[in-house]
């Protein structure tokens, strides 16, 4: 069965781009426009992996991770941050919140898939 991934990004093009890459690699993809939206999707779905942007309106990626980590059904799902931020300060913050991995934008498809496979194995 195809593994399910939730892609959270406020940029439609990034959302589509990541989805396309993932779908071509055989994953099943759901999308959400920000953290709060993602939580609603998570209300009724479960995923093998969440990929989220950091900087989003309404609810940012780190708040999303914090929320997910205290949600009983999802607290163990791996979460990868996909963001333009590359500094340790943010990584540190994300790690404290419970992120599993970090990919910096712009990224190449192979690198993203490599990280995903690393996390999903």
């Amino acid at each position, binding site marked *: 069965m195809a593994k399910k991934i939730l892609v959270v990004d406020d940029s439609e*093009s990034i959302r589509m781009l990541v989805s*396309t890459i993932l779908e071509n690699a055989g994953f099943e993809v759901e999308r959400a426009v920000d953290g709060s939206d993602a939580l609603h999707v998570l209300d009724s779905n479960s995923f093998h992996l969440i990929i989220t942007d950091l900087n989003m309106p309404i609810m940012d990626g780190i708040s999303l991770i914090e929320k997910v980590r205290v949600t009983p059904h999802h607290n163990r799902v791996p979460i990868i941050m996909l963001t333009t931020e590359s500094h*340790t300060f943010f990584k540190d913050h994300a790690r*404290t919140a419970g992120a599993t991995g970090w990919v910096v934008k712009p990224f190449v498809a192979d690198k993203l898939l490599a990280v995903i496979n690393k996390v999903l194995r």
Partner: protein
Amino acid sequence: MSDKLTDTFLAEANELIIDIERCLLEVGRGSDDRENISAIFRAMHTLKGASGMFGYELVQRLTHNLENIYQDIRDGNRFLDSVISELTFKTLDQLRLLLGGPSNTSEPAGYHELLEIVKSVSGDQSALSVDHHYNSPSPAEQCTYYIQLTPHLNIIRNGTNPLYLVDDLLALGSGIARPFFNELPELHQLDAENCYIGFEVILATDKAEDEIQAVFLFAEGNCEVHIARIANENLIKEFTNETNPFITAETGKVIGFESVRKSMDKKLASRVTETANKALKAKGGNIRVGSEQLDELMNLVSELVTTQARLSLFANISESNELSGISENIEKITRRLRDNAFTMSLVPFDSIKVRFQRLVGELSKELNKSVEFATEGMETKIDKSIVEKLIDPILHILRNCIDHGIETSEVRTKNGKSSQGKVSLKAFYSGSNVVIEISDDGAGIDLERIRDKAISRGLISKDAQLTDLELTDLIFLAGLSTADNITDVSGRGVGMDVVRRNIADIRGEVEVATIEGQGTRFIIKLPLTLSILDGLLVKIGATEFILPLSAVVKCYEVETTQLEETFNHWITLDGQRTPFFYLRKIFSITQAKPLYSQLINVPYNGSLVALAVDQIVGEYQAVLKPLGNLYLEQDEFSGATILGDGTVALVLDPTRMIKNLSASETTNQIHN
């Protein structure tokens, strides 16, 4: 990259640019600057990220530098002055130009100059820029580190492969890695899924220690890491077979930093420095607490408030000054503790805003109406349990606004309105209440139609004289839907009566005001919290009641006979003719009357109404307990509380009680 994706990106990029322009203009007009500046920053950030992905490098570079300026502004390190806003507009024009062409083009004329200007403007303040601040200086020279990685037994089960960590380490520079065994058990006890191997790495790199630590960022908690700088130069290239510290020991035991140091050539060792491993500092001042824990805290605080009330009572009776002192002190602390605990369970509206935004977006598309959705005061906080119960009523009202309120673009233009309709959601504090206003600039409610409908449904009599306010209020009655043709959107499922009931369930009130042709406004008034109430303890006969203190305007003392002898239930208070309700009579309490009674003025529908009771006992913090099912119909009581001496007092909801009492009179009028 497929064309479709690129098209999406271009469309999005243009939207982002328009957003930035709009926000920039609004800042110019002096609206909420903080919100707009964050929005600008976020839009630039998104644009930067996406353009990088889609190969628009020039756009990315320009946006990146512009973003830096706005980051400073957002963080309060500089002001958005006319120079910057002009530069921004100019840059946006350039961005449009770049996005109009293919990706990967060479720099158009003027690009370089503009980039330099933007860079210099952002660079002016670089000392204050956050990026700059976070960047720890990386040593120009290579350093050599000794890193000892001891994974926990379950690291692989937790999804981290320690080999990747070693790979990542070695990718930072040149290095030597050597495994060691970590408490290897007897063969029969060996668990194939456990990790018994650790690694020692000697790494020469020009990267800062921070970056080495960053490798273990996501593995923290799954392994022990020890990092020590052994020299401020690259020792690796000096390692020969004799000096290679790992060559000497092949036992699979951990060598350790000391041995590594010792085993090195004296010549080298003299240059070796030892740096303490800096612990990864946890940043941010927030801690997470489970919601059950918070509920438990609230429960305990509630119990404490009750017990404290009992103590106060006892202290008063005992007439011991010392005890009164202590009791007053505890009361003060309890109050502060209570307020503190409350704020913890409050959440901002922001958390549910997106639901509304999506609804408006989807609905306007579905109904082919152009609708702008504006929000205000979304940082207003309200009790978590209230927020959850608010979503459905607000969604329903919004649906009504868009479906019935907002007209189609053609109709709007014909009526001289802007073609785009506007729906706004506003939240703010008002005393101990939170007020939510949902308004549209649509057609308003057709009061004549409401009237006809209500008459045809037998809800009011044909010749009933109702004010506009009362007429509008009829939409909250069950069985009155003005939607003649039930659309897919509203007019199905729940009606406005359910909205009112749902809001009443959380001790809220909903009202509606409408002006034909100009729009409709729904006003929802809610308590800040549901569980504790600042009340006024009153007595009628031997029975005690609680009134919410927020509803009490003023108290008067009058002779009881004055209340008994009046024939129309009006009394003059402070020179004002005021209607009053004689609660003793209404509750059929027949115990001995006092000589003097108390009148309590409460606000009702913009005027004052008095409630007559026997005696005012004093202020009281009531812990609200819900009433049982038997009292479901008695909605003039919002709950009950246990008093200090263990007796139960009902908590009155004055507004609803007056409404019920006057409604029974009005209905009589209508039906007679």
